[in-house]
């Protein structure tokens, strides 16, 4: 296995043996149980740094390479990481740096007072690119358990080859990396997108067998007329990162069945490392719109308002997941890295779901107000408070991939810029609408149901 190719990156093909040697060379440069702010990209250096730090038991705290200067500053201030691992071109430098290929390891000169908990391996944000300081605390066992489970239900084998389509810092993107390395498969690391010719050239040249996508990836593939593309090496493609919608799910389930590609829609949360449920490919058409059944080793149930278990089919309640991939909890600053397990293996997902007669789960709503916008989770209440800090009174609503921001006054264009800056979202992903008055009840609370009627 060690002579097998682990990854391809811009024409370089690196074996597992070489990858681990490179990883350990980087990893031994950091102190065990220190915190590394990790600026992730889909490159060999990023992958080797990740493995090296984990192997030397430094804690990896992921950030997207698109992070803005203010958010970076806020993270450094809040978490006091001992190191920053970042691409050469990234806007951070320190007095003590060492280069590794296209990456640099920078000593920050800071030392956090809190030592990481002995189980803590990795910290990920829940909100994609929104620059949030809130992180999920994951253990070595979480990463291992979720990867084992994914390899099992997808049937990943050493002959598989996965191409990157999602950010390395994103729980779903990282789960594809982890599970394929565990299976001894190979990876094609690229920052190219599906709209780059080089991406499809790589898929053909490397005989790629799989990729993953968020709902908007599948909207793109539909627009690219996926049905006409000739990609004989593809064996299975996966979807997660928000609800695909029944129609799009069915479209791809049928299309893939014709093309002899397994299409597997999945459900997950960063709080559970990545994956929680999946729809087996054989049931994909019939169960379109469902999130499926629990992954191997996990258990799903539905809880009513009083905390009791809902046994009856087609009855909505909060979806609860139990499994070895449930994280320890959250962190919002350095002090939290020493915290123990707050969740105890049980995750209340915040999603409202019901179970059908066959035991398949379907999400019917959310307990908290948040949307998925192009794969990024946006908490509407959090967004409203962020805007309030800017002096903008707004009410946010909408559905997945269509966020709406209602304001009573101000210039919609400039508010759009602020929202885009605060959330990192593309401006076309949301609407700012000027209305006479935000609908409120007597207590002054915004009436979101009346707001929806204005759409």
């Amino acid at each position: 296995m060690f002579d097998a190719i682990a990854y391809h990156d811009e024409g370089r093909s690196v074996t597992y043996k070489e990858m681990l040697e490179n990883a350990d060379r980087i990893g031994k440069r950091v102190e065990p149980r220190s915190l590394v702010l990790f600026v992730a990209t889909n490159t060999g250096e990023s992958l080797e740094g990740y493995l090296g730090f984990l192997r030397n038991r430094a804690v990896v705290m992921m950030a997207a390479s698109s992070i803005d200067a203010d958010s970076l500053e806020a993270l450094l201030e809040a978490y006091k990481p001992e190191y920053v691992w970042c691409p050469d071109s990234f806007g951070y430098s320190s007095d003590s740096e060492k280069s590794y290929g296209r990456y640099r390891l920078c000593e920050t000169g800071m030392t956090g007072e809190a030592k990481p908990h002995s189980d803590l391996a990795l910290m990920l944000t829940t909100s994609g690119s929104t620059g949030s300081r809130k992180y999920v605390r994951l253990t070595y066992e979480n990463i291992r358990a979720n990867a084992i489970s994914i390899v099992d239900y997808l049937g990943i084998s050493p002959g598989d080859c996965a191409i990157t389509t999602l950010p390395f810092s994103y729980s779903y993107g990282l789960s594809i990396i982890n599970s394929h390395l565990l299976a001894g498969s190979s990876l094609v690391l690229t920052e190219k997108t599906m709209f780059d010719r080089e991406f499809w050239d790589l898929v053909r040249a490397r005989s790629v067998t799989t990729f993953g996508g968020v709902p908007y990836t599948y909207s793109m593939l539909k627009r690219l007329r996926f049905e006409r593309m000739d990609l004989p090496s593809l064996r299975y493609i996966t979807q997660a990162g928000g609800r695909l919608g029944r129609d799009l799910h069915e479209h791809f389930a049928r299309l893939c069945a014709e093309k002899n590609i397994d299409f597997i829609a999945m459900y997950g949360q960063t709080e559970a490392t990545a994956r929680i449920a999946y729809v087996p490919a054989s049931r994909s058409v019939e169960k379109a719109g469902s999130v499926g059944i629990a992954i191997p080793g996990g258990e799903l149930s539905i809880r009513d308002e009083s905390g009791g278990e809902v046994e009856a089919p087609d009855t909505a309640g909060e979806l609860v997941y139990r499994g070895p991939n449930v994280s320890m909890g959250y962190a919002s600053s350095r002090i939290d890295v020493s915290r123990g397990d707050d969740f105890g293996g049980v995750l209340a997902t915040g999603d409202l779901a019901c179970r059908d007669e066959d035991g398949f789960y379907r999400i019917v709503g959310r307990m908290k107000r948040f949307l998925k916008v192009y794969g990024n989770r946006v908490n509407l209440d959090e967004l409203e408070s962020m805007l309030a800090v800017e002096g903008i009174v707004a009410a946010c609503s909408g559905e997945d991939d269509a966020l709406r921001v209602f304001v009573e006054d101000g210039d919609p264009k400039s508010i759009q810029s602020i929202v885009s800056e605060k959330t990192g979202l593309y401006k076309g992903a949301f609407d700012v609408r000027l209305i006479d008055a935000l609908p409120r009840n007597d207590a002054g609370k915004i009436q979101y149901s009346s707001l929806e009627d204005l759409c």
Partner: protein
Amino acid sequence: MSNIETYNTAFKDTLEVDDAMLGADLVYQSVENWDSVGHMQLIAALEDAFDIMLDTDDIIDFNSYEAGKAILSRYDVEL
């Protein structure tokens, strides 16, 4: 609106660029909003505006303001 105005409007609306930026330097990923999401919006806007459906290869090759003009000419859109 003339075809070239329609073409320019699609760029300005979806990529948030101004008139001065419409030219040979405007290529895929050269401005913040022309990422994969922006690309999808741009193609959708052009397909709607000209009532055409671009082929896969043309959507992928549509990687600059100038390249797009040549591609649209093959769909009988004279700019």
